[in-house]
Structures are given as structure tokens and as C-alpha cells.
């Protein structure tokens, strides 16, 4: 178990700054996730930590030791690659024991480790197969076994599950976390899948355009996203533009398009300020008829999508804006296309952001 520290790390490729002055601190034994869209610099960060790339600026410390000039083979890491990078000319057994062998362990020990780790991932009977003979899920487990075989104290996972079928991915997620936790290693995972991040991690760093936007525990990130980008990326959120109409001790009242009023508990924004009101899909209260209530908003069901445990309803509000609502499926069955509905935004559930300088649309770009 080691702790990893990045201070002011920057990496450029030609004119593109892939990683821009990043600070990170990963605690011992932590399962840490770097989450962000494609091109945010996630994989680059991971490769910098692994030593596969050299930073242009900044320092990287393992347990307080500067490792900038230590080559990857001396950093004692386990790396699970996107697409696995299993050596195609070696069998499962040779792949898994490659690390212990090149690190010079004696043959008996290598034999023991190989058996141990392969039985842990239930692949001992496939030891003599070649990677291309295995299914995607098996290849993934071989890649994990290979990374763990040397007993490294730092495990780096580059989108370890993204090559798998959606359903299999869900199942293996739990398995992955259990195996990693059992070894006690510090783990850093890179992914673009928010569920993977939320379900597996102790803490998450959100990356955007090479910069760290927010670092926190899943619960804090989800409940208190510090920016519109994070909120949009990690929660399913509705965003509305508005103007603060009134501020008092209890909170504020914000006027949306079409003159609709929304009550919030927010007091950080001034009267007349342009703001963005955000509320999660699952926090929107929705009723299948028009109910008279102050701050009620009316609309019409436009689309219904069935998600299994949930139902997602998209409604066109009378002010011309769209709102999405996520309900447990058992309640959602009551709604039908074209139904008139009443929507309520519970003040405690609303987050208010200042209107972004680059415009709302720019903040909502996720690629």
C-alpha cells in the first residue's frame, strides 16, 4: 500500500496540453477513480503515474519519494490496460507469470503465485489457452490477474471494463472491487462511466480538458457537484436559465423562462443575477393531473422510456422548456403519452449555479 502524490503535473503533446497542472493525492489503500469524457487527459494521467510517459512539468511522489526519473519497470505497479494488451504469443499462464519471472523470482514461487492468482479469477483450467481463445470476460480477468501477480502495491486500471457487454460489465464491477480490496493495494481507475466510478470508488476526481474540476467521495460529488459540468456529468440533471427575483432569510425566488417562479434555499446569489437552476431527474416531483399549488408548473408527457427499475419521462412544460423525470417503475406506470402533468421542484433539492461565462450550452458539452 502506498500513497501517490501529483504536484503541478503537466504533459503536452505538440501544441495540445493533455494534462494541465494537476494536483492529486491518493491515500493508502484507496480505490481512487479519475472520471471524465474522452480526451480529458485521464489515460495520460494514469500513464504519467505509471512512468510510461514523462511529465513536462511537476512532480510525482510514491510514499514521499520523487519518482519522476524512475522507469516504469522499477515503480512496482500493476497496470490493467484498456483492451487488456495480453501478449498474443503467450498462453494465459505465461502472461500471468510474466511479471514474477522478469522480476527474477525463483521458479517455485512463480509456480505458486501463478496457481494462486489464476484460481482466484477462476481460470486455472484455462492456463494453457491463448488469449484469443478466451471470451471477453475471461480476457479481462486474465489482465487483472497478470497485473496482480507481482504483488504490486499500486494497481492502475485504464477503463478495465469498457470492452465488455453492458450486462457483464455490471456483474464484473462488484467482482473487480472485491478482488482489488482483498489485495489491499492502492488502486487508481480511469473511466468515462459514472456508474463505474460511483459504485467502485472511495474517492473520485473529475477531469475536464486536462484539469481537475472536483475531487471528492461519491456521495459528496453526487449531492454537492461544484459546477454545472460536474452536475451534468455525474448526475442526471435538468438545467434551467433564470434570474433571481427575490432573496430573503429563507432563500430565494428565481424566475425561469415564461415567467415561472421557483423557490430555492439558495442565498448566495444576488437580486437580478443571471443563474442556472439545477434539479436531478429523480428529484422532480410529478403528478399525473393538474394540481393547484404555488410554484406548480404544468406540462405534457412527450416521451416515456422504460429503464427496468426506473421509468424516465420527458415532458414539455408550458413555458416551452423540457424537463426529464426519473421514477421508480412501479410509480411510473401511471403515466401515459400526452398526459397533462404537474411538476414540482422541492426547494431543498434545487442547486443554483451562477450563469457560466461561456454560456450554458458550452458547459453541457460532454465530449
Amino acid at each position, binding site marked *: 500500500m502506498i500513497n501517490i502524490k501529483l504536484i503541478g503535473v503537466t504533459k503536452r503533446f505538440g501544441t495540445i496540453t493533455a494534462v494541465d497542472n494537476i494536483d492529486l493525492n491518493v491515500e493508502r489503500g484507496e480505490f481512487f477513480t479519475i472520471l471524465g469524457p474522452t480526451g480529458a487527459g485521464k489515460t495520460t494521467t494514469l500513464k504519467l503515474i505509471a512512468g510510461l510517459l514523462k511529465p513536462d512539468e511537476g512532480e510525482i511522489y510514491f510514499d514521499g519519494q520523487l519518482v519522476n526519473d524512475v522507469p516504469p519497470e522499477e515503480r512496482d505497479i500493476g497496470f490493467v490496460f484498456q483492451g487488456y494488451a495480453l501478449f498474443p504469443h503467450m498462453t494465459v499462464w505465461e502472461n500471468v507469470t510474466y511479471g514474477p519471472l522478469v522480476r527474477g523470482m525463483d521458479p517455485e514461487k512463480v509456480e505458486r503465485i501463478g496457481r494462486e492468482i489464476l484460481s482466484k479469477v477462476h481460470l486455472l483450467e484455462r492456463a494453457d489457452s491463448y488469449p484469443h481463445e478466451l*471470451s471477453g470476460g475471461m480476457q479481462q480477468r486474465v489482465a487483472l490477474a497478470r497485473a496482480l501477480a507481482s504483488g504490486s502495491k499500486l494497481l492502475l486500471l485504464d477503463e478495465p471494463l469498457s470492452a465488455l*457487454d453492458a*450486462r*457483464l460489465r455490471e456483474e464484473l464491477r462488484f467482482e473487480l472491487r472485491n478482488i482489488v480490496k482483498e489485495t489491499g493495494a492502492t488502486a487508481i481507475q480511469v473511466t468515462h462511466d459514472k456508474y463505474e466510478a460511483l459504485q467502485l470508488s472511495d474517492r473520485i476526481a473529475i477531469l475536464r480538458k486536462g484539469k481537475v474540476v472536483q475531487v471528492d467521495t461519491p456521495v459528496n460529488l453526487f449531492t454537492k457537484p461544484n459546477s454545472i459540468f460536474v452536475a451534468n456529468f455525474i448526475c442526471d440533471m435538468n438545467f434551467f436559465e433564470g434570474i433571481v427575483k427575490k432573496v430573503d432569510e429563507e432563500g430565494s425566488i428565481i424566475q425561469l423562462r415564461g415567467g415561472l417562479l421557483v423557490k430555492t434555499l439558495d442565498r448566495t446569489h444576488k437580486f437580478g443575477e443571471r443563474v442556472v437552476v439545477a434539479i436531478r431527474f429523480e428529484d422532480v416531483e410529478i403528478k399525473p393531473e393538474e394540481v393547484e399549488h404555488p410554484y406548480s408548473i404544468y406540462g405534457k408527457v412527450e*416521451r416515456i422510456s422504460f*429503464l427496468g*427499475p426506473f421509468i424516465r419521462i420527458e415532458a414539455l412544460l408550458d413555458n416551452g422548456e423540457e424537463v426529464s423525470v*426519473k421514477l421508480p417503475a412501479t410509480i411510473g406506470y401511471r403515466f401515459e403519452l400526452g398526459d397533462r402533468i404537474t411538476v414540482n421542484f422541492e426547494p431543498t433539492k434545487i442547486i443554483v449555479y451562477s450563469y457560466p461565462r461561456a454560456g450554458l450550452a458550452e458547459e453541457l458539452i460532454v*465530449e
Partner: protein
Amino acid sequence: MPDVKLVNISKRYGKGRIIAADKVNLEIKDGEYFTILGPSGCGKSTLLKIIAGIVKPDEGEVYVGGKLINDVPIEERHIAMVFQNILLFPHMNVEENIGYAPRVKGIERERRAKIVEEIVSMLKLTLRSTAFPDELSRGAQQKVSLARAIASETNLFLLDEPLSALDSRVRLELRYELRRLVKELGVTAIHVTHDQEEAMSISDRIAIMKHGKIIEVGSPVELYLGPQTIFTAHFLGKMNFMEGVVIESSGGGCVVEVSGGVRIRTKAKGRFARERVVLAIRPEFIKLSQTINENNKNVIEGRIIEKFYTGSYIYYKVKLENGIEVLTLTEAEKMYKDGDKIYASFPPEYVILFKYPEEGLEKELSLE
């Protein structure tokens, strides 16, 4: 009218060793959004390729609009395809890509430009039309390829895992866009995917496929709530399975004894006493509480052993007193800690029963 009918379609590869399609029969209605869902290698892409005319079936017939089209070449089948690998022509810019189908039809440059413009505004594409594919993000590329397909003005869309190569966040956004477009254009769409949530959220009907066979066809809700097979139940979403034996069966349902002598009452009918069954319930239907509630049925005591945070909801793994572990999904507002004592209740109306599979439960649950 593009209704599609497959009759007894079979296809084998590798000298007959790999069965990609095994006597498949399917009927897809005009204007339907139909999805073929299954794990990698189940033969779903092969089926789509047979409809497109890329692969010739060994046996069986393909009808589109009532006409047998087995021997019609791809270019005369009037289909529009969207691919997992996107496949925008790399040497053409956005406008040339979208205008390709009109161009090969021999439509003049001026009219072509108009068609392209119309589609671009319909899709709300805010792109430079002179940009080349590799200058666009993956999501934008796939939108352009959708536009290219629309420009062919056909009414049968074949979508081969169109979202699989995209970032998960982009995937979500494009998913709804896809359905909106298909419905707006009034075309028939056949969509192939391995993502069960994607399939359920956009389809009118879904066919579940495994090892070259269609296992079940139905609407998303039908399949999710009333699956006929263990595989469907498992593939469409997380499900708790327990082996058990029916000990009492009547018109109102039956009682099943699972391991440890625990009895669970269900509303499932048509079972006979002493039948070996598999009992199943979805995580979101199991209710957790820290006190015994009179209204709850089938209450079993247990302890929280693990939790997985997913945002507004949390998965708890509960170890029941009979040693069985179940997964539950509850609102995140109620937070339990590992080791908390808990009462889990299984509402009888949501407990489903399956005949115990001949080859064992383990094999049925394989997702690959």
C-alpha cells in the same frame, strides 16, 4: 411498406461449427422500433447482416414488404445502415458524406445541397459542413452518419450497435435522439445491441437472442416484469435467484421453500407441489426496513454486508438468516451501514418462478 419477415433463417460459420442463426423466425411490423438484444457472439449482428444482404443465409427466407429479397444485392434493398464503427468516408467532408446517397442516385449538385441542408437542420447539427470526419468527436461523427443514412430516403433503418463505440455519457444522449428521429421519420428500425438498458429504453419490442436462437420476443415491460426464461430475466437486469421446492400450490399462488427451510409465498400460478423451481425477484422490489412492519409479507431477517453507491439509489447486499445473499436497490436517503440488522420483505406479486433448468442454474446465468 417495410415490414420485415424472417422465415427459418439459419447460418453457420467455420465449416458448420459456429451456429450464428438457428431457424430464426421473426416478424417486424411497419413503423416499429425493434431491437435484437443479446450477449456478444449470440448471432445478432449476423441476423442484421442477413437482412441487409451482406451475409447470405444458408437456409430460410427474408421478406421485406412481403417480397422475397434473398437474391437482391445490398444496393437495391433500399436500406439505411448505421454502424458501430461509424464508417464515415474519411476522404469526404461532412457535406459530401451526407450527400453521398443522393449523389450515387445521380441527383444534381444543387438539389443535393438542399437535401443535405434539410437533414442538417432536422438533426440540429451545428457543424462546419466542410469539416472532415476525423476532426469531429465520436458523438458528432455518429450523428453525421445518421444524417447520411437519412439522406438515402429509405424507410428501413438497420442500426448495428450504433452507440457502443461512444462515451457512456454521450451514449445516453444519443439514445433518445435516435428514437425521436426514427419515430419522426415514421420508418421501421431494427437495432442490434448488447446493452439491455438501451434496448428497453428505446424499443417498441425486443427479441432476446442467445446462441443463434431467438429466446423471447416482447415489449420491454413484458420482458422485464414477466420473463419466460431465466436467461431473459437475468440479461435484462440484476435479479436475485434462489433454488427451491414448491410445497403448496393453489389458485392464488404457491409457497416455495428455499434453503434453510425458509418459505416464500408467491402469486405465481400453475406450479405443482414438490416441483423443483428457481425463484427470482428483482433488487428494486425487495423492501428493507429496520423494524417489522405488519403489512409486509415474506419477511426474512438479515444483515447488510456490502453496499454500492449509485447516486440517488444504493445497492445493498444482504445476507439473509438462511445464508443466502440477496441484492437490493433502495433510495439513498435511507443509509444503512455494513453489519446493520435488517428485515427484508419479498412482495409475493413480484416473486417469479421458473422451472429448474435441466443443465443447472449456473449455466443459464452465463452472460457470455
